[in-house]
């Protein structure tokens, strides 16, 4: 743990702070929803006050029990999950989970999911009035739900309708989390930008499946699940790059970020901030290690601010 305290190089003149759709962050390293619980689970490994923002597990209007087992499966350089958004519901979140996070000086972004527009609106309205919520991340891309959920994320009209409805009921900064499981992500990205989204998160998991050849059964009870981890990083980078070229709101990049170099690649592709997801499972201090490496990169690249790195991809000659 001590290693974070050891000065690595003089990086005091570097500016790491970013503004993501109205949320002011001291640095661009966040946690990805569903991979960091409600923050409290990691406090003995991560100083929450050093994160750019904490994004909590998806919440719904009522508690959801989640999917039956098996829910996860390791795959080459990745994992599949079909958790089914098991969560305590928005009221449970506000009374049981949020008070703990209020003691920290870190923006809390709440990931919101639902099966209908009304559910998303109900949850967002409740969060709007809750003390200690810095922003909402609308999860229109969860691949593990029977109805709703992802259908919003794969249809520009539905996505636009949903964002408009939520926008009308909350003044909180609104991030919209995009699904990679679409033909053209830029169509959805522009639709939600036009509908009033303040920022975009990209990407959620890629739908996949794993089969046990011996028993000829699916490895996951839900049959399909969301693929995450290093296996999806190339796809995530490509999608962030495409979205960056088609919208003007900031992007939170994620998908397989394991270390600072991975994060830097996302900034170069156009992300203004990054979120660390599955890496938290492998290394509880992954977010801190990603953060630690960014100033060093900026310094050697002769940059004064993280903003110089965003979208700095050099294509062609």
């Amino acid at each position, binding site marked *: 743990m001590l290693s974070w305290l050891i000065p690595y190089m003089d990086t005091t003149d570097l500016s790491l702070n970013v503004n993501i759709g109205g949320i002011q962050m001291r640095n661009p390293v966040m946690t990805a929803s569903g991979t960091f619980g409600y923050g409290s689970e990691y406090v*003995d490994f991560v100083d929450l006050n050093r994160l750019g923002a904490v994004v909590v597990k998806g919440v719904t209007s009522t508690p959801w029990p989640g999917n039956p*087992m098996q*829910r996860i499966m*390791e795959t080459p350089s990745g994992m599949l*999950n079909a958790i089914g958004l*098991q969560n305590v519901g928005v009221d449970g979140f506000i009374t049981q989970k949020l008070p703990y996070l209020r003691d920290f000086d870190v923006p809390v972004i709440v990931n919101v999911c639902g099966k209908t527009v009304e559910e998303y609106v109900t949850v967002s309205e409740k969060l709007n009035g809750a003390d200690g919520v810095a922003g909402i991340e609308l999860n229109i891309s969860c691949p593990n739900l029977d109805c709703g959920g992802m259908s919003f994320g794969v249809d520009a009209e539905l996505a636009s309708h949903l964002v408009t409805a939520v926008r009308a009921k909350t003044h909180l900064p609104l991030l919209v989390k995009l699904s990679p499981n679409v033909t053209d992500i830029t169509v959805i990205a522009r639709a939600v930008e036009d509908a009033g989204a303040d920022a975009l998160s990209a990407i959620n998991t890629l739908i996949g499946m794993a089969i046990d050849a011996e028993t000829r059964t699916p490895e996951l009870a839900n049959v399909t699940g969301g693929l995450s981890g290093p296996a999806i990083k190339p796809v995530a980078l490509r999608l962030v790059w495409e979205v960056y070229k088609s919208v003007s709101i900031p992007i939170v990049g994620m998908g397989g970020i394991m270390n600072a170099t991975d994060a830097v690649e996302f900034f170069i592709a156009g992300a203004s901030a990054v979120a660390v997801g599955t890496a*938290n499972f492998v290394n509880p201090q992954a977010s801190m290690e990603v953060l630690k490496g960014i100033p060093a990169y900026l310094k050697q690249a002769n940059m004064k601010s993280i903003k110089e790195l965003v979208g700095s991809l050099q294509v062609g000659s």
Partner: protein
Amino acid sequence: MRNNPLLNRYDIHTAILSNEKVAEDHYLLRCECAEIAHHARPGQFVHVLISYGAGLLLRRPFTIYTVENSQITMLYQIIGEGTQRLSEMSKGATLQVLGPLGNTFDIAKAPPELAILVGGGAGIASLMLLAAVLRARGIQTLGLVGAQHRARLLSVTDLKSIGIDVHIATDDGSIGHHGYITDVLAALLGKTERHRPTIYACGPHGMLAAVTKIAADFEVPAQVAMENRMGCAMGVCLGCVCPVRIDATHVEYQRVCTEGPVFNATDIVWDI
């Protein structure tokens, strides 16, 4: 089961001190993990990073088999890629060991007059630290060890060395009772009316379900250690859950890594 409210968890970079074959497909690994050794309680486990990168992403969970001063051991079976790679690592190779994790077997509230440990296959690994604590408290303890066949039998010498009577069953009858270890359990319970026994079990799902049924038939309390696939082992991914009966009408998915791995046998819904 006692939940561990104090988060005495450590993620330790360590080197393998020894990693030896102890039975067919089974290895005993020893490493220096002072903080984990200091805080480890019976039933708790560690989450081991076998190789960073190189295709294998997630850690692998193993129970803390024994604690000796600042060292811990793990007794593991080769199942797939992860444990295969682990078995090929030699002295000096590095690992990252996160722990101790999970709750513990509960012997504090109601110390049993007689403890019966039931281990199937590598499941016996989850009961060794418990065995040592029970013996240190002078509690009479029986060890029931099941294996496929003689060459895969585990822990018998270790149990005997701390004064535990061991009963054996093998699927092919190559040593001990020819059949399931649960047959031995049922027969024993029929003979132990004088005592108030408690059962502690770990092993394959089917064995644990059978132990639960036998314990219920004899009205004997039983605690089981569950082994589910794990992602984080920190309580956040919700990948490791099992269905637990909360009251007459409610079942909820609880995390084996956090609310478990030890559960009251009758609280688990075995047929979901």
